[in-house]
């Protein structure tokens, strides 16, 4: 292991980024789903920085109770504070906590990395919301006008308005989708907004993320037995429905639906489709006129031919170098190697390493707010 570390150090040489640590994560028996996602999150720099900042400024009261947020923060702190630049760390507390909290992840079975990511982000949001509410009620009872921690925007001072809280997790990952329905008779458009932390998209053979996203927001017609009740027409009419991205998130997480339930088989099947994911992505299906531009910084890769077994690794871009994280091992790879994870154009291919969760960070200026 030490040799691997030194190998990476040797490979990077002078270019080893200052202050950066590249540590493998120990596998406790099928915890690669967890390790691969944790690496992607660790190298999501704004997320890492805000987590550590939040943790150091709120240590006093988070000490009281261990939760997934404190465990994650502990783990990240542990990595950043390592003396050595490379090595292996055992995310023991975090995994224990995860298994304690959710029985889905308790077994030693192969787990779904997307399910874990989704659970983790929602759990973090819940913890932050709970804390902020507790803080708020504390503040109210003491009628203090002090600023509420964790950078929460408190435009409303009376605290009675129960508008959804925007935590720093939201600020990083949350986007808004708008569901537009247009009655084909009176052509009135009804729009309904919904928030998302990641986009799960259907995939096709020999396609690209851009085309899959286009399909995601393509128009669907409500017709025949499934007409739309138009309030303006007071009757059922044909309507066109489509999803648009109203607010593109800072960190865009795209989940490729590679595991599909096949009715005839009565089980899930892995789709090894070749889906090209570009290093730079433009989101065009937005409500805003300007396209949102993104840069790829992490990929969680599923290795294997079936949904119930296999392995997860992650590709991470840090300081313009691409790194390959496989549990304990960390290697440097060439940027061109990323395209070997697009998938296979033929159904039965020896290549079973397929991009599964993509992490993009918004790069365009003017969207910093």
């Amino acid at each position, binding site marked *: 292991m030490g040799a691997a570390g030194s190998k990476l150090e040797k490979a990077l040489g002078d270019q080893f980024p200052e202050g950066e640590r590249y540590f493998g994560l120990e596998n406790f028996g099928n915890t690669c789903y967890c390790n691969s996602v944790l690496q992607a999150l660790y190298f999501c720099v704004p997320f890492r920085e805000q987590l550590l900042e939040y943790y150091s400024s709120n240590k006093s009261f988070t000490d009281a109770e261990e939760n997934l947020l404190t465990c994650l923060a502990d783990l990240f702190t542990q990595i950043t504070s390592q003396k050595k630049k490379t090595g292996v760390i055992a995310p023991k507390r975090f995994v224990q906590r995860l298994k304690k909290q959710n029985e889905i992840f308790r077994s030693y079975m192969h787990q779904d990395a997307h399910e874990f990511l989704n659970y983790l982000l929602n759990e973090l949001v819940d913890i932050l919301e709970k804390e902020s509410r507790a803080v708020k009620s504390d503040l109210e009872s003491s009628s203090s006008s002090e600023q509420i921690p964790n950078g929460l925007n408190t435009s409303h001072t009376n605290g009675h308005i129960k508008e959804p809280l925007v935590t720093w997790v939201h600020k990083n990952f949350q986007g808004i989708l708008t569901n537009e329905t247009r009655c*084909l008779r*009176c*052509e009135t458009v009804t729009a309904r907004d919904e928030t998302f932390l990641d986009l799960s998209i259907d995939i096709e053979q020999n396609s690209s993320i851009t085309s899959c996203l286009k399909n995601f927001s393509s128009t669907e*017609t409500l*017709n*025949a*037995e499934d*007409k739309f009740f138009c309030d303006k*027409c*007071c*009757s*059922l009419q*044909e309507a*066109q429905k489509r999803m648009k991205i109203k607010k593109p998130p800072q960190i865009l997480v795209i989940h490729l639906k590679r595991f599909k339930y096949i009715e005839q088989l009565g089980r899930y099947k892995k789709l090894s489709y070749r889906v090209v994911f570009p290093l730079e992505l433009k989101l065009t299906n937005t409500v805003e006129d300007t396209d949102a531009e993104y840069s790829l910084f992490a990929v969680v890769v599923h290795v294997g031919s079936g949904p119930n077994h296999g392995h997860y690794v992650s590709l991470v871009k840090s300081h313009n170098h691409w790194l390959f994280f496989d549990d304990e091992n960390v290697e440097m790879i060439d940027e061109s190697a990323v395209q070997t994870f697009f998938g296979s154009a033929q159904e039965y291919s020896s290549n079973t390493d397929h991009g599964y969760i993509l992490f993009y960070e918004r790069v365009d200026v003017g969207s910093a707010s």
Partner: protein
Amino acid sequence: MGKMEVRGERKADELSAMHRVASAGNTSNSSRPRKEKRLTYVLNDSDNTKHCGGVNCLAVLKHSEPNNRSQLFTGSRDGTLKRWELSEEGATCSSTFESHIDWVNDAVLVGGNTLVSCSSDTTVKIWDSFSDGTCTRTLSQHTDYVTCLASAENNSNIVASGGLGGEVFIWDVEAALVPVTNSSETGVSDSSNGSEKSMAVTSLRAVSSSNGITSLANQPQGYVPISAKGHKESVYALSMNDTGTILVSGGTEKAVRVWDSRSGSKMMKLRGHTDNIRALLLDSTGRFCLSGSSDSMIRLWDLGQQRCVHSYAVHTDSVWALATTPTFSHVYSGGRDLSLYLTDLSTRESLLLCTKEQPIQQLALDDDGIWIATTDSSVDRWPSEHLNPEKLFQRGGSFLAGNLSFSRARASLEGSTPVPVYRAPNVTIDGIPGIIQHEILNNRRHVLTKDNSGSVKLWEITKGVVIQDYGQVSFEEKKEELFEMVSIPAWFTADTRLGSLSIHLDTPQCFSAEMYSADLSITQKAEDDKINLGRETLKGLLAYYLSKKKHRFVPQPSVNGDIPSNKDISSKNITLSKAEVDGNVQQDSRIHPPFQFSSTFPPSIITEGSQNGPWRKKITDLNKSEDEDFPRWVLDSVLHNRMPPREHTKCSFYLHPFEGSTAQILTQGKLSAPRILRIHKVVNYVVEKMVLDKSSDTLISDGTLKPWKLKPSIEILCNNQVLAPEMSLATVRTYIWKKSEDLVLNYRIVSGK
């Protein structure tokens, strides 16, 4: 305890209904009956001479003789068509064509005396245009909404219909109208005198229309229209040339398709629009075609060259209606932007003629004017100068139509909004504001509605009248103001699709609500007499029909010998009063005043016939021929007082002494009583039990509880709340108990006097 039950039985009143029930669940029938046909009635509060829904279509019948005035036909979202006699003074309604059960979407005139209409009820209907509303044929080939029709100026025999799901049919009207001799050889239903005769149908397939009535589309064996197959998506516009040889269609595919209407074969497909095509016009020869689209553009196509020769950016929103001058030199266009424009097709000059308050849905040229139909229930005629459109352009104020989509939208944003040439129409045919919002009140007899004009009214749906007109007030506030804490089962549903209030009755739900006769001021009934709201309403609706049918009605001996009272019957119901005087009608069939429907503004009934699909008719126009056409369950209930088993008219509850109360325990088991039982009845029950227990049980010698001389004063509580005596068990359950478990009531002796 046994004694008490005997006493209860002897009393033969409601207390006997408060019997114990086994606590082991009911043995209710779990097998669900097949879906029964629905009966709908459409309420009315004005005469038949005005539309109450947006006008979807217009057709002008011009007479050649100069003294003969033109006639206008309108088809509306209210489900009816009307014929208007046009004169210098305006227009008067001379006939209403009522048979469609959903929006009338389009209408065309063929050969002068035939009117063809299409509807969201999936049918095309053929009418005698000069009749009193006679539907001569119903064509049921379509399986989804029929949205548009096209006819040929010089060929009175051909009509094309287009609809959702991409269906396009070309009909030979004459062939479709041929009287059917062999009933098994038709896909059309023969009807005369407005009443459709029954017809054997070889095969059926069910199609749901938007009101939930399942219509049966006939699978024809004999006359089959030509089908123009190829549309993958819904058709919203059609047009034909004068000879009826070329048909164009457009819809959500965004392409104009051209067909040979004699064979139904595809000729070409023209692309260019970027959204739904809502209006099409072919010139008389069939060479040029105009299209209006939701992409806000008007396009001129040369079918000879198979290409778009011009595109006109005139409107700032969807183009829904087109009309041209006789020479196809100018086009009138209207749409979602409320504006009517006149555009010179060659110079591209465009002029704003007028603006409306509602989106423009259809246009029709008249001698010297243009009729405009909007989503409002009124239509009006504006000057058009269509014989000499140049005159209008000479006045100035025109602009040059661009050829890029939304260039007008940008122009208007930049403040160059044109001023309309005309300020006011020269003729207006008023409609009445359609109902757009409704709320069924808790008493389940009153429905609050709001119409297009903001007027709020309260309807009593069991007699179909407006009982309060509040004028223009806040609907929400009125709704809150009228809130009553009562709980009555939802025995009907309602919608306002037709601009009127439609009440839907389905079995068995419609028989789930009961009321005390006394609460409806129905006299000559026992104090505890209950009536079923659904059944009484059905009786009221069918009263006119039954009185006509009287001769065939076999009277049954009166159940309890009650003498029917004529006092209860309003003068409006003369036929019925007579029937009762005759003594032929059993007491049970008496129509109680709260269920007497008006004959001045009679509601219409919509239901599905046994064979000919759905129909609609005024209750006063029902006659014997509808006999077989009512759903079986309606006749069973009205004629034979047979109703499906009802599960929800009873309410189970426990009756326990209030915690800490000195009142003795009367009963441990579960009780059952009608849902509508009032709390004061429960009080009476408790009192009687106590008195009875006291008098029969001499063992109690407790000094504090002397044998009752006066009845004890008892109050009933639920969830620690004292209940008002007039509350019903159902109300207590819904508003006080608020749990799904069996209701628990407590009683205690009121201290003090």
